[in-house]
């Protein structure tokens, strides 16, 4: 499926979704409360069949936490990139996509561990790498601890 077809399809279903500027994959920017339904639609639509979430991660940017999903279809082979921006840095929260792809459950645990983004309805949202009593979320840009070196 080409980029144009994908855009038409997604925009047809979700008119609010904005188009991103990524050159590599077709990129769609959705609102946090929309991402779950967008993901479900992409997985269940017979034309897209995005059944393989190969990467889900976050980045701490100036305008908030960017949550990035890389999806592909194991049968059809096309990829898509979804993005949602959580502008509230103090209390970032988004609906989990763990129910759609099992892999997301563990990616989200990692994101929660390192960014502190809360995933609503996640079945087992615990720290995955760090100790349970760790204070702070290391991958945030404002994170500081006794090991941080000042450059």
């Amino acid at each position, binding site marked *: 499926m080409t980029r144009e077809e994908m855009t038409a399809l997604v925009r047809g279903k979700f008119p609010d979704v904005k188009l991103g500027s990524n050159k590599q994959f077709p990129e769609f920017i959705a609102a946090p409360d929309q991402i779950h339904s967008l993901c479900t639609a992409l997985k269940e639509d017979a034309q897209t069949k995005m*059944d393989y979430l190969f990467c889900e991660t976050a980045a*701490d940017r100036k305008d908030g936490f960017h949550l990035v999903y890389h999806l592909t279809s*194991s049968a059809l082979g096309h990829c898509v990139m979804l993005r949602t921006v959580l502008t509230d840095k103090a209390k970032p929260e988004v609906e989990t996509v763990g129910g759609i792809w099992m892999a997301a459950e563990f990616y989200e645990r990692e994101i929660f561990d390192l960014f502190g983004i809360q995933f609503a309805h996640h079945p087992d949202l615990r720290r995955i790498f760090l100790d349970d009593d760790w204070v702070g979320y290391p991958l945030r840009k404002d994170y500081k601890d006794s090991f941080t070196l000042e450059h």
Partner: protein
Amino acid sequence: MEETLLDIELKEKEEYIINMGPQHPSTHGVLRLEVCLEGEKVKYLRPHCGYIHRGIEKMSEKLTYPQLLHLTDRMDYLSAHINNEAVALCVENAMEVEVSDRVKYIRTILAELTRIASHQLWWSAFGMDLGALTTFFYGLRDREKILDIFEETTGSRLIQSYITPGGLMGDIHPNFQKRTKEFVKYFRKKLPEYDQLLTGNVIFHERTQGIGIMSKEDAIDYGVTGPPGRASGFHCDIRKIAPYSAYPLVKFNQILFTEGDTFHRYLVRIKEMWESLSIIEQLIDNIPPGETMLSLKAIKAPKGEYYQRVETARGELGVYIVSDGGPLPARIHYRTPNFSNLFVLNKIAQGHKIADLVAISGSLDLVIPDIDR
């Protein structure tokens, strides 16, 4: 540690829980599997990782792109070349430059040698997991030959730091081609021995066939890639899906099975070694002349986001770079194969015996630093 709901629940049920790891011979590193048993049967298990979490992603934000190598090497230390290649390709794509054919050929040969070396080590360790202790020495004996090739060209045996954004750290050693050809010839003779010792063995068949069956749906759902995914019929070889370096130029088969049990995960790797040998044979005599390093003013990605997928020995490695255009990346994420491969263990090991759990986790070929990063 805080008691989670699950822990309290377990105490009430008085279940027989054993901790495999962090120091346990079968976990090949510091991974802890909290296994709940019923007799010898695994009821369920919970993996606990993070024992060697080094914060590579955080560290990467403070390093320039060429400096990233020495960290990516240490994620999946058995696929060090391929990890470096992933970063190099990602940065090159971002800068919109293309390396010479010579570099592409050398990278591919090194990647395939790495794949063989990694599978050899896995084969050795897998035999050990099942109690066949001699396999360990045969596998390592042959792996040593590859490490010698690496050492001659790159100067290091395990953590090579050789493939860099823009090309290679140096040209290959004059002996490289000769030695590699010698190795291919040697290993083509030794590989049937592996089959004789383990693949055909009736006890090995009994121990692995029909154990830990993973369906194709599960593999896709959990994101299990690499040999475990392909044993389940998941068409996930990045070398085929999104070819990079010299892979478009060579002929090779993607090994696919549909059974998805431990034995076929084993078989995929054995057959992949044959395929890797044939890839090397196709390339080794035709390395074209050319520059090994692009003359770039400064290696930095322009503003934007870039993603690169490569196939390591264990599955799909993704490098996700967010750049603000500066010399340092704003954010780097490594989508490592073992992280996804680990969590399917709970699903496929349930209902099997504890001895099978060892076989299954061995067949997933987990490298713990790659999980923890």
